[in-house]
C-alpha cells in the first residue's frame, strides 16, 4: 500500500466524493469528516514513512499514458511538497469538520473532496502534463464554491478568478509544450517528466523566454503584483471555507511551482530576473500592506495581507540559497496555517453578524474573550512574532535574500512594520474600545465546532514556531539538492556566483545527470539559435 | 470563326438571362430566364465537345429541375410581391466580383502554370459519350453509385417534406383560416 500511497492520496477523496452523491443528506457531514480524516491519517502516514535524509523523490509511481509523446502519470514527493500535501489534507479535514450551516451541504462536501484531489495532485505530480491537468482542475471546484455559495458579487468574482488564472496557465502550457519540444530536439525523445527536464541545460536566451512563460502562470496564481486583483474579489465573495482553502493551499501552488519548475529548470534566467522579481515582491509587500490598511472590510484586510505575505515568500525563493528557499517553503506552510486561521476567524464573526465591516464592531474583546484571544494569537503570528510559525519563515526568507541585496532586504523588511500597522489597527477597531452597537452586546463566544478548527491551528502555530526543526530538516535536504542542481546547471558567471556551491550535493547531481545528453542539448540549442 | 461567334453569342445570351433571373421581381420571369440560361449553357458544353454533359444539362436542368421549380412555385403565391430590403449594392457587387475572380484564379492557376497532365486523357477515336461512360463506370463507379443513392434519398426526402398536409393549400385559404391553423399548431406544440 505504501508503494501507491500517493495515488491513494490523490484518488481516494475523488472516489469518496463520487460515492458521496449516494449518501443520505443527514449523514453527509459525518461521511465527509470520516473521508477527510482517513485522508489526513494517510498523509500523516506518508510523513511517517518519509525518509528525511533522502534528497530525491520518494514513493514514485510511474504509469505511461501516451507513450509516443512521453506523457506519463508520474507522482512523487520530496521535502518540498510533503508538508503542503499534509497541510492540504489537514485543512480539508478541519474545514469540513467545522463547516457551519450551509445550504446544499452535500454539494459543498463533495466539491471539497474533489478540490482535495486536485490539490494533492498538483503537489505530487512530477509530469508536466499531469501537473497542468490538476492545476487547471483545481479551478473548477473553487469556481463552483465561490459561484454557488459566495456573496452578492459572486458571479463576477468567480469568473474573474477563473479566467484570470486560466489565462496565465495557458501561457504556462505553451512554455511546457516548448520545453518538451526542446527536450525532443535535444534527445530525440519526447518527455514531459520534470525529472527528465532537470537534466537539460538550456542556453540563456531560451531560459529567459521560457522563464517568462512559466512566470505568467505562476505569478497570477501567487498572486504577484500587479496580477493580484482577482484575489480580493475571490476572498471577499467566497464563503469562509473557500477563502480558507484558497489562502491556505491554492495560492501555494504558484510559489511551489516556482521552486519546482522555474528555479531548477532555468537557473540563469532566475538569476537574471532576480532583481525585477524582487522589486515586484517588495512592491507587493509594502503596497498591498498599505492597501490592506485602507480597507474597511476585515476579510479584505486578511486577503490583502495574504498578498503581502506571499511577497515575502517570493523574495525567499529568489534568494536562491538554501536559507532563503527553505524559509520560503516553511513560510508557505506558516502562511497557510495563519491566514487559513484568520479566514476561519473572520468567518466566525461573519456567521454571527453577517457583516464584515470593521466599523460594525468594536469592543468585542469583552464580549467574546476567547475569540479575541485566538484572534490575537493569530494576529501576532501574522505580524511575525518570534516563536510563532510565521517568524521562522519570514526570518529565513529575509535572511536568505540579504545575501543577494542589502537595500532590497531593508525595503522588504518593512513588511514587519507595515504588517503590524494594518493588523494592529484592524484588531483595535474590532476588539478594543467600548461596545457601541447593541447587536454586538450578546454575541456568543466561539462554539465547539469552531474550536475544532481553531484549536489545532493555534497549537500548530505555536508548536512549529518553537520547534520548526521537524519541518526544516526534510525541507532542507531537498532544497540543498535543488540549489546544488542549480549551481551545477548554471552557465553564466554571475549565476555561478549568486547561487552557492554545495559541493557535497553537486557530486551526486553530476553522477545522475548524463553528460552526453547535456552536450547534445547544448549543440542543438546552438543550432536552433 | 464559327466557334467564336457561337461563343460570344451564347455568352451574351447566358449573361443577360441570368442577369434577368437575379434582378427581376417576378418569380415567373426569373424562372423562365433561368431555364433559358440553362439551355444556353448546354450550348457551351456542345461547343467544348462535351456532348454527354450538354445532353445531361438539358435533361436535368431544363427538364427536371425547372419542372420541379415550376411545380414548387404552384405552392407559393407568386403573384404576391415580396418586399426585398436592399443593402449596400456596392458591397454586394464588390464582394461578388472579387470572389468570382479569386475562384477563377484558384481554379485556373495550375493550368496557367502548366503544371498538370491529363489523368484521364481523351481517347482518340471514341465519342464523348463512350469516353464518359468508360471513365464513369471504372474510376468513378463508387461515386456514381453514391450519387445515385443520394438522388434517391433526395427524392424521398422531397416527397416526405413536401407531402405533409398536402390537402392544405395556403394559397387558397383565407388569412383567418391560416391564423386559426397556426393557433392550433401552437397548441399542439405546447
Amino acid at each position, binding site marked *: 500500500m505504501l508503494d501507491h500511497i500517493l495515488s491513494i492520496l490523490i484518488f481516494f477523496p475523488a472516489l469518496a466524493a463520487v460515492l458521496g452523491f449516494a449518501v443520505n443528506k443527514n449523514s453527509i457531514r459525518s461521511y465527509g469528516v470520516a473521508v477527510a480524516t482517513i485522508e489526513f491519517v494517510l498523509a500523516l502516514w506518508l510523513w511517517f514513512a518519509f525518509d528525511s535524509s533522502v534528497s530525491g523523490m520518494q514513493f514514485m509511481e510511474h504509469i505511461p499514458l501516451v507513450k509516443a509523446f512521453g506523457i506519463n502519470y508520474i507522482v512523487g514527493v520530496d521535502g518540498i511538497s510533503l508538508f503542503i500535501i499534509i497541510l492540504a489534507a489537514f485543512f480539508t479535514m478541519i474545514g469540513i469538520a467545522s463547516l457551519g450551516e450551509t445550504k446544499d451541504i452535500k454539494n459543498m462536501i463533495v466539491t471539497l473532496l474533489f478540490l482535495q484531489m486536485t490539490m494533492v495532485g498538483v503537489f505530487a505530480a512530477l509530469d508536466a502534463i499531469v501537473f497542468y491537468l490538476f492545476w487547471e482542475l483545481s479551478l473548477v471546484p473553487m469556481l463552483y464554491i465561490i459561484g454557488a455559495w459566495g456573496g452578492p458579487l459572486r458571479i463576477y468574482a468567480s469568473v474573474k478568478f477563473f479566467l484570470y488564472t486560466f489565462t496565465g496557465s495557458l501561457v504556462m502550457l505553451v512554455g511546457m509544450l516548448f520545453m518538451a519540444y526542446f527536450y525532443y530536439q535535444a534527445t530525440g525523445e519526447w518527455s514531459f517528466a520534470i525529472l527528465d527536464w532537470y537534466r537539460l541545460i538550456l542556453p540563456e536566451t531560451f531560459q529567459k523566454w521560457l522563464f517568462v512563460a512559466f512566470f505568467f502562470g505562476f505569478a497570477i496564481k501567487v498572486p504577484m503584483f500587479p496580477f493580484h486583483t482577482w484575489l480580493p474579489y475571490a476572498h471577499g465573495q467566497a464563503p469562509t471555507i473557500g477563502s480558507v482553502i484558497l489562502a491556505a493551499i491554492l495560492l501555494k501552488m504558484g510559489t511551489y511551482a516556482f521552486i519546482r519548475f522555474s528555479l531548477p529548470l532555468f537557473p540563469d534566467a532566475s538569476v537574471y530576473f532576480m532583481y525585477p522579481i524582487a522589486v515586484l515582491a517588495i512592491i507587493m509587500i509594502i503596497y498591498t500592506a498599505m492597501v490592506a490598511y485602507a480597507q474597511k472590510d476585515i476579510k479584505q484586510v486578511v486577503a490583502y495581507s495574504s498578498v503581502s505575505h506571499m511577497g515575502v515568500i517570493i523574495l525567499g525563493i529568489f534568494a536562491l540559497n538554501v536559507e532563503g528557499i527553505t524559509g520560503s517553503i516553511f513560510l508557505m506552510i506558516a502562511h497557510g496555517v495563519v491566514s487559513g486561521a484568520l479566514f476561519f476567524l473572520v468567518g466566525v464573526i461573519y456567521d454571527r453578524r453577517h457583516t464584515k465591516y470593521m466599523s460594525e464592531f468594536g469592543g468585542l474583546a469583552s464580549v467574546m474573550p476567547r475569540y479575541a484571544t485566538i484572534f490575537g494569537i493569530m494576529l501576532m503570528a501574522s505580524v511575525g512574532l518570534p516563536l510563532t510559525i510565521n517568524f521562522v519563515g519570514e526570518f529565513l526568507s529575509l535572511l536568505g535574500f540579504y545575501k543577494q541585496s542589502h537595500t532590497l532586504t531593508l525595503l522588504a523588511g518593512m513588511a514587519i512594520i507595515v504588517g503590524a500597522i494594518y493588523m494592529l489597527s484592524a484588531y483595535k477597531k474590532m476588539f478594543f474600545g467600548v461596545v457601541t452597537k447593541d447587536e454586538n452586546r450578546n454575541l456568543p463566544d466561539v462554539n465547539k465546532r469552531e474550536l475544532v478548527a481553531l484549536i489545532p491551528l493555534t497549537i500548530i502555530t505555536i508548536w512549529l514556531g518553537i520547534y520548526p526543526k521537524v519541518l526544516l530538516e526534510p525541507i532542507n535536504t531537498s532544497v540543498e539538492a535543488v540549489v546544488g542542481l542549480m549551481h551545477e546547471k548554471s552557465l553564466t558567471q554571475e549565476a555561478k556566483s549568486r547561487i552557492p556551491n554545495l559541493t557535497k550535493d553537486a557530486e551526486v547531481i553530476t553522477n545522475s545527470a548524463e553528460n552526453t545528453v547535456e552536450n547534445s542539448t547544448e549543440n542543438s540549442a546552438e543550432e536552433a539559435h | 470563326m464559327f*466557334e467564336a461567334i457561337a461563343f460570344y453569342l451564347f455568352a451574351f445570351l447566358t*449573361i443577360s438571362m441570368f442577369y434577368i*433571373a437575379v434582378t427581376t421581381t417576378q418569380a415567373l420571369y426569373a424562372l423562365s430566364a433561368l431555364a433559358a440560361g440553362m439551355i444556353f449553357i448546354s450550348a457551351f*458544353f456542345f461547343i467544348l465537345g*462535351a456532348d454527354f454533359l450538354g445532353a445531361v*444539362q438539358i435533361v436535368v436542368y431544363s427538364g427536371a429541375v425547372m419542372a420541379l421549380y415550376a411545380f414548387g412555385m404552384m405552392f407559393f403565391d407568386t403573384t404576391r410581391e415580396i418586399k426585398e430590403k436592399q*443593402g449596400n449594392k456596392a458591397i454586394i457587387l464588390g464582394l461578388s*466580383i472579387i470572389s468570382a475572380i479569386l475562384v477563377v484564379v484558384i481554379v485556373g492557376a495550375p493550368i496557367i502554370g502548366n503544371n498538370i497532365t491529363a489523368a484521364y486523357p481523351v481517347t482518340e477515336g471514341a465519342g464523348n459519350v463512350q469516353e464518359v461512360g468508360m471513365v464513369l463506370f471504372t474510376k*468513378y463507379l463508387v461515386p456514381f453509385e453514391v450519387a445515385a443513392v443520394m438522388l434517391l434519398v433526395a427524392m424521398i426526402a422531397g416527397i416526405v417534406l*413536401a407531402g405533409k398536409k398536402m390537402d392544405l393549400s395556403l394559397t387558397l385559404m383565407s388569412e383567418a383560416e391560416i391564423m386559426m391553423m397556426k393557433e392550433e399548431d401552437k397548441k399542439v406544440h405546447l
Partner: protein
Amino acid sequence: MEIGLNHYLVLTTILFAIGLVGVMRRKNLLMLFFATEILLNAVNISFAAISHYYGDLTGQMFAFFVIAIAASEVAVGLGLLIVWHKKHNNIDLDNMSTMRG
C-alpha cells in the same frame, strides 16, 4: 479570334459574380435557389472548359456530379421550402431569424 481557355474563364467569372449578387441581394428564398443554380452552372462551365483544353475527362466528371448534387439539393430544398411556407405563409429570408445570437 481563337477562343481560348481564358475566354471561358472570364465568362465563368461573370456568371459566378452574377450568381453571388443574386445570393446576397435577393430576399426571396426561391430566388436564392435560382442564384445557387447559377453559381453551380458557372463552375460547371469552367470545369468543362478546362477539361476540354487539357484533354482530361476529370473536369467533365466533376461537372456531372455537380449536376447530380444540384438536382438533389433542389429536391430537398424545395421540400423544406414548402414546409416553411406552410408554417409561416411566406418565404422571406428576413423572417428567418430564429438563429439570432
